């Protein structure tokens, strides 16, 4: 109870009762308790009635409550799955497949949307009038169209009118495009491929160590170390070198055009492609605006000060502008990533089996509405909460250290 309630109290004492004490009706504390008790009572009553009705309705429909149904046989197929799954698997397996699919499309979408969004956002700030206008048109178009429509546009408008599998469009490197999706060579690792992967991991670790050492050295002696090239060499050069030395231990299984269908290779279904493209393009328009806003929010004095210190344009951007802009960009950017993850539930509209689509199928089969909605809630809320925790940590790390 701070100043405000004291003011309330003073207000209450304008009309003192005859005894000089404040009447209970005018006591803000008593009022507060009364309102809260009333709210609790009403909410409890509402919850009680709803529960009673639900139990009654479920009994009437002969639906057993509880999560036991998850052990039952699913009986439906899932087109695209990252793990072993057949219609004989359990409902729990189906949900796991759905969850993995959600995560897959969300990660792919986040990466692509960030890349497009940053390019478009920087383009809008370009000195070049034509580039700035093209980027603005992109943003204004995609921001103002429902994502579901974009998904349908790709799925029913573009991908489904592609030719049949037997006369697929041929793309370079043995890739094909048809109305069943996008087929590309499957990478089959041979013995020794593991060593190249190990070299990649070693490269990452080594570059981290070298960066630390270079930073320390620069702090102590002022001498700079060409850290960018070193990193590139360690992370990309080392594994490529190992790969070549071992004699490229990898082979490709190319999709082959049969009489009716493509055989072999890997295939990505049109459901995934349309969802992924639509989410990326849609979210990119929002990311572009966030990036633009963040960079514009860095005061002009910062650029001028950096110029006065003799920084070149590249260094100014890298050391002065971008670190400050990122501090503004990252919180809204995370919420866009969350939005993309939530929008991936639009998969149900094109039949891509994400967690909502799988849950919907289960709901139709078993009628376990309460349990399935609860599962959805838990899954999405845990994604949101973990992102929020990460954001708090990140904000605390990035926050300006002030006096």
């Amino acid at each position, binding site marked *: 109870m701070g100043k405000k309630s004291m003011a309330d109290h003073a207000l209450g004492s304008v009309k003192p009762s005859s005894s000089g004490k404040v009447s209970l009706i005018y006591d803000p504390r008593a009022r507060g308790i009364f309102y809260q008790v009333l709210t609790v009572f009403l909410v409890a009553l509402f919850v009680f009635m709803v529960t009673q009705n639900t139990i009654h309705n479920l009994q009437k429909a002969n639906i057993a409550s509880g999560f036991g149904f998850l052990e039952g046989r699913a009986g439906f197929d899932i087109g695209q799955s990252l793990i072993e799954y057949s219609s004989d698997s359990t409902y729990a397996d189906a949900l796991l497949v759905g969850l993995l699919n959600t995560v897959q499309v969300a990660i792919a979408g986040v990466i692509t949307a960030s890349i497009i969004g940053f390019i478009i956002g920087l383009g809008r700030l370009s000195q070049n009038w034509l580039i700035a206008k093209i980027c603005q048109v992109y943003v204004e178009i995609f921001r103002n*169209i429902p994502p*579901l429509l974009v998904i349908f546009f790709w799925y029913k408008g573009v991908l489904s009118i592609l030719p049949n599998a037997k006369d697929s469009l041929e793309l370079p490197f043995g890739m094909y495009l048809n109305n069943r999706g996008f087929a590309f060579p499957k990478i089959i690792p041979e013995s020794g491929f593991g060593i190249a992967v190990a070299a990649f991991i070693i490269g990452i670790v080594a570059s981290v160590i070298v960066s630390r050492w270079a930073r320390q050295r620069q702090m102590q002696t002022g001498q700079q170390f060409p850290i960018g090239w070193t990193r590139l060499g360690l992370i990309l050069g080392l594994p490529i070198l190992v790969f070549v030395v071992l004699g490229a231990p990898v082979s490709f299984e190319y999709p082959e055009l049969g009489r009716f269908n493509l055989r072999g290779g890997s295939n990505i279904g049109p459901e995934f492609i349309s969802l992924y493209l639509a989410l990326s393009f849609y979210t990119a328009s929002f990311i572009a605006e966030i990036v633009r806003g963040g960079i514009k929010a860095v005061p002009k004095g910062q650029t001028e000060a950096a110029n006065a210190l003799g920084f070149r344009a590249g260094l100014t951007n890298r050391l002065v502008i971008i670190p400050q802009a990122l501090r503004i960009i990252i919180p809204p950017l995370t919420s866009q990533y969350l939005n993309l993850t939530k929008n991936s539930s639009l998969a149900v509209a094109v039949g891509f089996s994400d967690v909502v689509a799988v849950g919907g199928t289960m709901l139709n089969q078993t009628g376990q509405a309460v349990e399935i909605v609860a599962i959805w809630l838990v899954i999405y809320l845990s994604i949101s909460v973990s992102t929020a925790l990460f954001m708090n940590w990140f904000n605390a790390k990035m926050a300006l250290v002030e006096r």
Partner: protein
Amino acid sequence: MMAVIKPYVRSEMAPAMPAPSTAVGVAHWVRQNLLATPKDVIMTIVAIAALAYVLPGLLDWLLFNATWTGSDRTACATVSAGGVVPDGQAGACWPFVQAKFEQFIFGRYPIEERWRPILVGLLFVVLLIPMLIPKAPYKGWNALALFIVLPLISFFLLTGGFGLEHVETPLWGGLMVTLILSFFGITVSLPIGIILALGRRSNMPVIKMLCVLFIEVIRGIPLITVLFFASVMLPLFLPDGWTFDKLLRALIGVSLFSSAYMAEVIRGGLQAIPKGQFEGADSLGLSYWQKMRLIILPQAIKLVIPGIVNTFIGLFKDTSLVSIIGMFDLLGIVTLNLSDSNWATAQTPITGFFFAGLIFWIFCFGMSRYSQFMERHLDTGHRS
């Protein structure tokens, strides 16, 4: 020696010279904005090349190669698919939109009763326009008519009663349903959002906790799950014999969803109001609701108008999701009509989606432009 040295001093201004020819006109503008640096030159060339690649194809598809008249699929299909369009040529199939236009607007609403939604639409426009013009008088009465009276009248006009034929909601569809859903969602979510935001800032722990719980749970989950919840769980919550209209379920789902987002926008506005305003209102002896209604909310809402309109735009776009739970809003009815074998050609889906996208775009773009206008209009310059 004594001669006075007269310094040369101009007594009148020299006439202004015209700017050098390189600093004015089209040439200057092009140099400044398109060809300033070598990098710019390259980017301009790339951009022009990209436009030259995309624009002619787009215009061909939209206008020059498009089919404009016809009564069934033969007008739009290629020769090899049994139509009249030369093979290899692709153009929009506008007769499809013409033929289905009324369905896209009204859904399967009975044809002889369509004057009713038209009347509602006219009333809506007549009431909305003065509401949007800042100088128009009688805002209070106008708002009352638009947000309270109009929904009541439209309810009876659209569903029937009082001698009008009853039209069931499954027959409603098209743009009409999209507009009803979003207007209802906007009208309901703003007051609920305000109440939730005030609750979240309340001193009473129980009320604060309930509001935070509601807002964070709803904001954490996708709209589809809320709509599934509304369409599958709400009937379970009701006592025997009660049923819920499908449209009403969607309305409840959409409104609950957007009110949580609205609450966060308004909370942002409330937090931006200096403490002195609250204390000033208290010291004037205003009650809590007087304080909020007369002092705090007018300032807070003004601050967050862009956010509110963004929520409206989001809501308008989100109404397209009701097609997933089996209702035929604009997007739903377009998708439904794509399966009409009378019009099944390769170009029909793209044309239909282009049309639906254009309508969505016009509404959303209009709203965002209006919010920019209001922002400038309401900017009293007090913000420091």
